């Protein structure tokens, strides 16, 4: 049997022909990085290659690293293997990685979503033979509603809380979700305050997209000033002393997991908004079909269930173990590393 173009080993997704890794989880010589979340862009590689909009983001997170930025669809060749980056629509700077060698094309999605969120360059279909896909929300129970509707709900909720004399605390990851949320908030209602981790990341992203003004909450921020406004904070701040400054407040989380009533209730959050940076069930199926791929490899999420369904649909589908985390309603190590 010939060596596959991409193989899964102890360190990550390995392209032997080019001696390069995609989103490795252990330190390697050369890594092509799909996007800036901590489980995909880890510390310790000798050389990073990523989309140029992701360069300031991973530099912010990882410090002084050796990194090369590439443009969309720009082909770069390593040992005769052709690589290129294509929009994944997951967060700003997120890319699918296309790998071509001897007429065979593989695409690794990293994380992706099909809806245009107004910040990330929208997802593009890339034709391939083998499609390595995430399936975080690979269950028919997940169906996203258009984001405009969700943002209307969020703004209505904020207005209502303000009328009741309460502060709105909205949880979202510092990179990606936080900027998506604040981009669409109705600033005629009030001011947007941020947690330090959110503010720092937002400052980086501000260089790349227009975002409404925000104010970081510091020791000097007055309690009375925050009242009735909205605060964007990482999920890990829920239940910590930091949040006490917001009293009286109402909490909400914006995540795909909020689909489940239990997810919100048992985590002691008041309100859940279903808003995800991943594909829903139909989004996954449509994307897979559009790639024209016959072989599908499911990396993280409901891999077993999703690949079984794909196999029944006639695909050559299997799962591979990776160390990518699923979008998690809980406090995650993603956040811990960032804040």
């Amino acid at each position, binding site marked *: 049997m010939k060596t596959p173009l991409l193989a899964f080993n102890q360190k990550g997704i390995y392209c032997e022909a080019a001696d390069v890794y995609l989103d490795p989880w252990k330190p390697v010589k050369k890594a092509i990085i799909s996007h800036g979340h901590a489980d995909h862009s880890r510390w310790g590689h000798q050389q990073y290659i990523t989309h140029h909009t992701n360069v300031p983001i991973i530099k912010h997170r990882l410090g002084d690293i050796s990194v090369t930025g590439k443009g969309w669809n720009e082909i770069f060749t390593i040992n005769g293997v052709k690589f290129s980056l294509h929009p994944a629509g997951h967060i700003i700077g997120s890319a699918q990685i296309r790998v071509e060698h001897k007429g065979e094309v593989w695409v690794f999605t990293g994380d992706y979503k099909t809806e245009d969120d107004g910040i990330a360059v929208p997802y593009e279909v890339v034709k391939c033979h083998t499609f390595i896909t995430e399936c975080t929300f690979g269950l*028919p*129970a997940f169906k996203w509603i258009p984001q405009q509707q969700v943002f209307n709900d969020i703004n209505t909720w904020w207005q209502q809380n303000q009328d009741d004399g309460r502060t709105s605390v909205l949880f979202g990851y510092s990179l990606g979700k936080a900027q998506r949320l604040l981009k669409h908030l109705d600033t005629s209602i009030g001011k947007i305050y941020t947690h330090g981790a959110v503010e720092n990341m937002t400052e980086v992203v501000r260089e790349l997209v227009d975002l409404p003004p925000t104010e970081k909450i510091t020791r000097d921020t007055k309690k009375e000033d925050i009242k009735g406004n909205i605060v964007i904070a990482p999920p890990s701040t829920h239940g910590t002393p930091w949040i006490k400054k917001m009293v009286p407040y109402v909490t909400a989380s914006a995540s795909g997991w909020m689909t*489940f009533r*239990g997810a*919100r*209730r*048992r985590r002691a959050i008041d309100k859940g908004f279903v808003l995800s940076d991943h594909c829903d069930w139909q989004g996954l199926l449509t994307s897979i079909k559009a790639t024209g791929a016959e072989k599908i490899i499911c990396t993280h999420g409901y891999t077993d269930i999703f690949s079984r369904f794909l196999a029944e649909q006639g695909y050559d589908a299997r799962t591979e173990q990776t160390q990518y985390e*699923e979008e998690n309603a809980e406090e995650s190590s993603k956040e811990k590393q960032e804040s």
Partner: protein
Amino acid sequence: MKQFAELIRTLDSTNKTTLKVNALAHYFKTASDKDKVWTIAILSHRRPPRPVNTTLMRQWASAFAKIPLWLFEESYHIVGDLAETIALVIPPSEESSEKSLNQFLQEIIELKARSEEEKKEYLYENWFSLNYYERFVFTKLITGSFRIGVSQKLMTRALSKATEIDEDILAYKLMGNWDPATITFTDLILKENPEDYLSKPYPFYLAYAIEDEPQALGDVKEWAAEHKWDGIRSQVIIRNGELFVWSRGEELVTEKYPEFEKFIGQIPDGTVIDGEILPFPNNDIGTFKDLQTRIGRKNITKKLLEKTPVILKAYDLLEWDGEDIRKKAYQKRREILEKLFNDVASDEIPLHLSSTISFQNWDEVAKERERSREVKSEGLILKRWDSPYLVGRKKGDWWKWKVDPLTIDAVLTYAMRGHGRRSNLFTDYTFGLWDKEKEELVTFAKAYSGLTDAEFRKVDAWIKKNTLERFGPVRSVTPHHVFEIAFEGIAESSRHKSGVATRFPRILRWRQDKKIEEANTLEDLKNLIPK
């Protein structure tokens, strides 16, 4: 229905009790009387009998959603609630129904007698034409118990707020058997109706688990102790020559315990006893497992009555001579109860007295607690001698001081994904103990709770990297981690591979300090079975 679905949506959008009470109170002030009665019924777990079995519902829902049944089942397993799964997997709709909650429930009641085809059509029609929340509520009304984070107590509080009727009076009114299809809001809630009170029990007073050392309760002389018997907490009512037996779940269970018919004529009319129904095979207190053979049965056969008879172990007296004596001191109530017991006690009457024990010091109390397993109780209940009989779980006068659970160190062998919040984590674990030769791990219990969220995440990450085999949602893992498992009771069982059944197993702690060779054996577990 719109209003009810909106209420459920509002209750779902907050975690704060006051906001929930306000939303419910607002509903009770504005909804139609018929809908109010149904809402009270639903929130106190009085739903109409299920008109369609859930197997059919699952088949129909997966067909309607155009997904294979196995995929529906996997989704159900992850979501954890059938109605929620159905509402999620079938295609979305923005429509809404003008029909009232009452109309829906009348239809659901009538549906039971319809043909399978008609039932299917009825479900399809409604699934198709209701928006997410209405669809969820509609399906929930059909599938079963309505647990949505609103306790009966919270509902009663809101009802009290809306009607300005005292909460305790309302709790009393809502107990017992009433049919939401026929009763009016006025009759149920507003009207004073003495006849209705014939079968009505009093709300149970429940003890809180003790928080500190019992010494903190003060002078031991002010306290009495009783054993906490492991049966069904019940109220037995004798009024007008009739017997009524109520379980703590406010269920009228008179027919299940025909033994107690013997009380009629012996115990005077106008008597209400608070006690514990206990199995009593071979003239001795049995195990809870014995009692389960009685609870589950619809028909109580003569054979069963002979094999597993029951007794009432009396704790307290709530009504005497037709008078509510709950405000009298516990000591006074016990005096009357003990006199009553002495008057009627005989081998023929299945009434026993739960003894009250007084002590000179707290060490003696602690010693008595140590005897609990020996006398087949779960621990002690401490009651203040001068305490009235209160309503619900109140701190201060009654405390339960249970025995420490039994524990054993076991090895994690299988894991399954959790439900709801935990649906992306492997949190449902199976544990094994060593066989005699310490060669093989024999499954003995499953446990779902007891670790912190952070620990669950750690174990989950480990499981995902150390999976040996996959069986649908279940994975077998490399035996590596030892956990201390706690449980309340233990009995032999032919239904379990291990030959042992444990009661309420849960994870007490993760023994990261122990190697799997140090885990216990099945023999160790069997030695815990009371002889």
